[in-house]
């Protein structure tokens, strides 16, 4: 049976739910499928006692190796994007001073920043279809 939990259970697990002294969580099962489509809106709320739960986990890295790999890949990529953006912002706002004194060194720096940026781009070309489309 699939469904969703009322509230914002993004980081919930059994320990957190117990810590908050929640007695029940509100589970809303998905309506049964009828010829591949969801039946009319039957969003009944089923209270589930926390004391009866055996296991509760959100889609955090520890939920499953898939999510561990997913967040490692996307998180590391995000760090690379941020680093590239910081370097390019620096060259954009503060590079002008160097252009007047050492134009050769500045163009070299821009070239290398561009190489790094396109490497990050290259990674995303593979990550996007593999993570989100396949």
């Amino acid at each position, binding site marked *: 049976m699939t469904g969703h939990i009322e509230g914002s259970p993004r980081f919930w697990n059994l320990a957190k739910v117990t810590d908050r002294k929640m007695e029940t969580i509100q589970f809303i099962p998905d309506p049964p499928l009828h010829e591949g489509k969801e039946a009319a809106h039957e969003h009944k709320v089923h209270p589930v006692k926390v004391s009866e739960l055996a296991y509760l986990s959100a889609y955090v890295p520890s939920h499953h190796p898939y999510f561990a790999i997913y967040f490692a890949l996307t998180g590391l990529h995000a760090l690379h994007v941020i680093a590239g953006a910081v370097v390019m912002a620096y060259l954009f706002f503060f590079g002008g001073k160097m252009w007047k004194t050492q134009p*050769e060194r500045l*163009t070299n720096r821009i070239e290398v920043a561009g190489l790094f940026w396109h490497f990050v781009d*290259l990674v995303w070309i593979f990550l996007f279809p593999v993570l989100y489309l*396949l």
Partner: protein
Amino acid sequence: MSDHSSPEQLKKDIRVYLTIFGALLVGTVLTVGMYYVHLTSVPLTIGIALTIATVKAGLVAGYFMHLISEKKAIYATLATTAFFFVALMGLTLWSMHDFPFHTLVNGK
């Protein structure tokens, strides 16, 4: 790295970059479009998606990263990288055969 280019050469370069940018956009549309075409064969879907990605990667590396007009030493370095990439992927595949698939699947 910084060869002195004339304004005409610069204009030509920019035209090349814009063409590559257009080709990459087409590639992205193709990749996303594939999501809406439901192929029954999973290996074929993965194959097509990764082929489009490889072509796009080739364009980025070749033109945006100037790989197409590089010196021999750069290609030698790249070959080393390619070798170790394949070796690492091979190790991953190798280790998969060490996993006792038939003894433990989802705890059952």
